[in-house]
């Protein structure tokens, strides 16, 4: 192989120009499938010519059989059967190029395209110089310093910009790396990989240095020479030690991206935080972020910026999960071993998401290891879990299956309350995903989730609930600039209550909601400045709101079957993120959403001038199946803008409108297993939310510190409140118990985060209010005289501090604090005697607050040794939840007992709770 080196080349040039001769060469040869390198060597030995070529031409087969032909004819012949281009410099030096042609004349339309640039010889040498580097197989040239040629060099002047696209994968497992950032420094622009590890980056043509960053991965970079659109796949190597870095989002993402109110949760950071009962829990971590609150401990549902728990769209691999609770909320639905990351969108929600008012919590599953089999697992006090993954066909398809189950319900036995002590509870869940790369343009993903929960309260009523989700996604790249993901999915949630203690009233009660969806989503990157996403989605809801049936022959229970409910939700969306200039980016999106309530159904009309009470039903109209009962819908506008004040400071602004057509009815302050989801119909209108958010974001480079300050104002319409004593289970005429209310919330969120160094963590502080107003026409439809009152999750001050210290590569410890204002509560103001018993009377709802909440947690992780090649990795983590043992009140309530009014305080975790967990990983 001929190696180019700069000096001899210039020397040759010099010699050639000095001693140029015009001697005529006659060539006779006979090559049949001879490698080009051998041809060149043979020719050079026989004739006074010199070939210059790069190593990629070496093995191209040449067929030529000539007799006394001219050099031009010979080159023409070889060109025709190999596609190689030759440029005769002088009359002896033949510059061989494969992907482009060197011309000494300008192309006809050259000046239209690139005025001012002349394709001089110097330019050609420059290209050759780069070719030398590209092909340089020098051992010392690591992959990071080598230049990758992207695209077709002949296209290099056609347009100003080219698009590099490709996949980022984990080198040993082949798993896609989601949410990694790809940036260049001049100008500072970047993109993020999507859930497939795919990126599309449109750049000015020419030489670039691309930096690849992802949490838990070793940083890497690539030198590219961008000629036109092309592909660049990059493998990144897991950074075993960096695994333990607490990082919520990429380095400067918060400054660079356009979204307000976005938090990216990486699974590595999740495993860092001490948790109760030893399960890393992605939803508990979400609660440490500014603007995210919950009613109290043991309540898994969370409230985002003053929204109810049902206003969060919780997606697992793009399919909604209706009940995210396990075992009274002590565990969440997501097995952390199978999750790659989760994104929480609090505002600036783009048009491709919709259907819930407050937030989108998008949880992505990991891909299985495409290269090797591995087993991972852990044993904590209550649960055991195991994850198996590996290739089905090496490098093209893989699977991952995560199983989790309780192995004991001893924990309930420790409760004081005899009802809970005699209860049994267990759960299990399984998550599976199969990824198949059909070819370079097509891939298919199957994913599934199934969970089952059962608990028996006081050995009487057995509660069981199930989530079942399935999805098939087909991803197709048309080219570098456009790809499509089409998916079909199915989500089911159902619960069952069985009571068989007394045979005469033994029954079972069923509730079921099915959501079948189809979606097609296009991502189009026409150029550096525009990033377009559009698509269509539709969901068919079919709901059995409740049926109760006798159990056993002795049962006298009469069967009740509530009318089935059906509905179709359709949305068409389009959004474009446009970079006006390097400082200003704007996003405009429009989502047209429609909802049709579909029969069968019943409509109740009430007497004019009377409140909606069962007694005042004047007429009941029954509709047949398939009839369109009611249509709602309208545009949802989504706008965002980001302006960079400097390289590391930006300000952002966003406006979102959201519509929600399915509602969870809950009379309790936290999520309970018998909460029912119902669809919008003639009487229950869709909820509508509007939010304006703004923020300022700063990165202190070098120290890895991020600061952000966000503010928001939100207005909610048609949210649901309940009449006093509302009974929502098996309620046929829901409108008699539900009150339409409006809400407003506003707040300021501050986040300070240090990502790097031995000492890292974050501090988040939120001041927020969440208010509700129910001012109906009748007294029973008014709460607190129709004035605004604080919602149950209105906790104005909320402070979370997460700190983590890395002692060495194997030991790190973390200490976390959490403080918030006590939640609002209704206290009775007066008492009275009735039927010889004292009772209390509640007047103003949520007028008082329970005492402020404070908790401190401690956790320490011991890693096994870090030999990367070791077969099994083991680690121990020990944590203490509620280190100070403060008995934070969950609720305060009053009971009439033995002729007295007694006040009580309920605390869920009133003592320090130590947990020891063992985790292992075989590969």
């Amino acid at each position, binding site marked *: 192989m001929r190696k180019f080196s700069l000096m001899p080349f210039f020397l040759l040039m010099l010699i050639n120009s000095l001693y140029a001769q015009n001697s005529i060469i006659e060539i006779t040869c006979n090559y049949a499938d001879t490698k080009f390198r051998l041809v060149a060597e043979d020719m050079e030995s026989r004739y006074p010519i010199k070939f210059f070529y790069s190593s990629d031409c070496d093995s191209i087969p040449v067929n030529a059989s000539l007799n006394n032909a001219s050099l031009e004819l010979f080159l023409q012949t070889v060109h025709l059967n190999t596609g190689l281009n030759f440029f005769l410099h002088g009359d002896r030096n033949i510059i061989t190029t494969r992907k482009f042609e060197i011309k000494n004349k300008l192309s006809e339309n050259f000046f239209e395209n690139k005025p001012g640039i002349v394709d001089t010889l110097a330019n050609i040498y420059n290209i050759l110089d780069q070719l030398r580097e590209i092909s340089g197989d020098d051992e010392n040239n690591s992959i990071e310093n080598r230049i990758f040629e992207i695209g077709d060099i002949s296209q290099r002047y056609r347009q100003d910009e080219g698009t590099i696209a490709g996949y980022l994968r984990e080198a040993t497992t082949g798993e896609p790396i989601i949410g990694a950032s790809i940036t260049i420094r001049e100008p500072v622009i970047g993109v993020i990989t999507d859930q497939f590890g795919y990126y599309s980056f449109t750049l000015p043509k020419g030489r670039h240095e691309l930096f690849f960053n992802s949490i838990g991965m070793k940083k890497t970079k690539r030198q590219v020479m961008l000629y036109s659109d092309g592909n660049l796949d990059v493998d990144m190597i897991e950074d075993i030690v960096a695994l333990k870095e607490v990082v919520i989002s990429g380095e400067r993402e918060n400054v660079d991206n356009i979204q307000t109110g976005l938090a990216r949760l990486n699974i590595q950071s999740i495993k860092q935080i001490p948790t109760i009962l030893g399960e890393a829990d992605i939803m508990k971590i979400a609660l440490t972020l500014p603007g995210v609150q919950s009613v109290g401990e043991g309540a898994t549902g969370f409230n985002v910026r003053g929204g109810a728990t049902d206003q969060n769209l919780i997606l697992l691999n793009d399919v909604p999960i209706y009940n995210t609770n396990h075992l009274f909320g002590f565990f969440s639905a997501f097995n952390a071993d199978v999750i790659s990351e989760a994104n929480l969108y609090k505002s600036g929600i783009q048009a491709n998401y919709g259907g819930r008012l407050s937030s989108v919590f998008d949880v992505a599953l990991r891909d299985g290891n495409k290269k090797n089999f591995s087993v991972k697992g852990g044993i904590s006090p209550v649960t055991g879990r195991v994850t198996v993954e590996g290739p089905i066909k090496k490098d093209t398809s893989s699977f991952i299956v995560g199983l989790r189950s309780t192995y004991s319900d001893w924990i309930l036995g420790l409760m*004081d309350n005899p009802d809970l002590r005699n209860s049994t509870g267990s759960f299990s869940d399984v998550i599976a995903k199969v990824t198949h790369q059909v070819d370079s343009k097509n891939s298919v993903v199957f994913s599934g989730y199934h969970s089952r929960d059962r608990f028996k309260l006081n050995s009487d009523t057995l509660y069981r609930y199930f989530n079942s989700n399935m999805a098939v996604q087909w991803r197709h790249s048309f080219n570098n600039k456009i790809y499509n993901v089409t998916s079909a999915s199915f989500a089911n949630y159902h619960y069952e209550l069985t009571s068989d203690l007394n045979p005469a009233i033994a029954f079972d009660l069923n509730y079921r909601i099915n959501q079948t969806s189809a979606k097609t989503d296009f991502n189009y990157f026409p150029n550096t400045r525009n990033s377009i996403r559009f698509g269509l989605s539709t969901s068919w809801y079919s709901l059995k709101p409740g049926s109760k049936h006798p159990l056993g022959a002795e049962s006298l229970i009469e069967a009740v079957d509530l009318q089935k409910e059906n509905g179709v939700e359709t949305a068409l969306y389009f959004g474009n993120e446009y970079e006006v200039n390097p400082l200003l980016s704007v996003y405009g999106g429009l989502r047209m959403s429609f909802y049709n309530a579909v029969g069968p159904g019943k409509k109740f009309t009430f007497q004019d001038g009377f409140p909606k009470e069962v007694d005042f039903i004047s007429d009941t109209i029954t509709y047949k199946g398939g009839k369109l009962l009611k249509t709602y819908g309208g545009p949802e506008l989504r706008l965002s803008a980001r302006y960079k004040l400097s390289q590391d400071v930006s300000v952002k602004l966003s406006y979102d409108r959201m519509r929600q057509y399915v509602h969870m009815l809950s009379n*309790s302050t936290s999520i309970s297993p018998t909460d029912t989801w119902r669809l919008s119909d003639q009487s229950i209108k869709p909820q509508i939310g509007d939010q304006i958010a703004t923020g300022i974001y700063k990165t202190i480079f070098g120290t890895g510190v991020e600061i952000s300050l966000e503010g928001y104002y939100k207005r909610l319409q048609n949210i649901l409140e309940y009449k*006093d004593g509302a009974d929502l289970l098996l309620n046929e005429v829901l409108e008699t118990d539900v009150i339409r209310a409006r809400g407003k919330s506003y707040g300021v969120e501050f986040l300070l985060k240090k990502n790097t160094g031995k000492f890292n963590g974050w501090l988040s502080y939120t001041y927020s209010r969440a208010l509700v107003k129910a001012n109906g026409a009748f007294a029973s439809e008014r709460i607190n005289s129709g004035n605004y009152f604080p919602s149950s999750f209105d906790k104005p001050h909320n402070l979370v501090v997460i700190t983590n210290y890395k002692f060495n590569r194997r030991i790190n410890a973390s200490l976390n604090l959490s403080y918030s204002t006590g939640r609002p509560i209704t206290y009775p*103001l007066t008492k009275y005697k009735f039927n*010889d018993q004292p009772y209390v*009377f509640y007047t103003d709802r949520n007028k008082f607050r329970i005492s402020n909440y404070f908790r401190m947690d401690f956790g320490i992780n011991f890693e096994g040794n870090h030999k990367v090649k070791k077969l099994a990795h083991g680690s121990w983590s020990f944590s203490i939840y509620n280190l100070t043992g403060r008995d934070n009140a969950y609720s305060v309530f009053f009971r009439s007992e033995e002729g007295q009014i007694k006040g009580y305080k*309920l605390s869920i975790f009133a003592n320090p709770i130590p947990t020891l967990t*063992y985790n292992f990983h075989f590969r």
Partner: protein
Amino acid sequence: MRQGILIFLSLICAFNFLNCIEEFYPKIPDTDNNFLIVEGQITDKAEPYFVKLSRSLPINATDESPVSGANVQIEEEGAVYLLTDQGGGLYSTNEFTGQPDHDYRLSITLDGNQYQSSWQTLRKSSEIDSIYYRVDMEETEDPDVDIRGIQWYVDSHGEASGARLYRYEWDETWQIGVNWPTFYYYLGNDLTELIPAEERRNTCWMNSPNSEINLTSTALLSDNVVSEHPLFFTRDQEEKLTIKYSVIVRQYALDEEEHEFWRTLRESNVEGGNLFDKQPASVVGNVKNVSRPDETVLGYFSANGVKEQRKFVIRRELPNGFGFPKRCALDTILKADQMDYEGYVSKEINRGLLLYNLILSPFGPAVIGALLAEPQCADCVIKGGNEQIPDFWE
């Protein structure tokens, strides 16, 4: 790994942890709200009925606030029955008995305000088939302590078209004895006098009306049958079952509105304190100010058909071990031990102790001391009982 779990378990158990409920009284400011409370019930049983009027009090108040001087009447279509003010907020009917399927309304005039209940139809109650008990255990907050007792149930049946919503009330009465029955007064100097039979306080009766809201519904059942409906638990340890015990259970027929009233009252006053607590509710009844309907009036006026049944339980019907009274010690005073025996004994008797017996010398007819009993061991009235035998006692 198994070892790891065991270590963990023992660690956990060192902390008595997880949810804890403790008494807690938040500071609640006094309010000047004093809502009118109306409590009235008529039935189809021939007896005087009462209406009670009072006003609500601040949550921290200790006194009561009865309302007297109101004009109270029960209206029926074509008839008005005036109630007599008994004082203390109590008003009673005179020779009026509710009739099934008649409509009644309560009407109150107070300080120029006119209050009215909604019309109540008196629905006949279905028959109680039986009330019965089973020996059972009740668990407590302490996992090691279970309380033994008997659980009461009711069965009833009615016509399919009859009332299907019921509320139960019960009234327990039980006979109590004393550990050290006394028959003599001590007169001093070893002299005694027989206590006349009618003054002896060795057997009494105690009574406790129910305090729970107990509801059931057959509305969703194919038959109007109440089967094995649990009523209440009688604890053995309260001396209720030491001699003879009796309970009367009343079954009231309710309409939906009243059933709902009791249900929400129970939910917001008795059932608080679990993870899935409902929003506490304000429970407003069926009485309104006629001219100012927005005024909060609490309580309920109801017209219920009633059926009742009484049941007795004698100790020997219960399993062995049931019905043991609490222990009570005797005070033995010996002349040999006391410098001033007479003075000491009369001081103790003045303090309330009762003479159980004199101690005689084993060697001859001489008194060497006295056995005295604490009053709560020898006087059933002091134990809280009533000497009067109830008229229904068998």
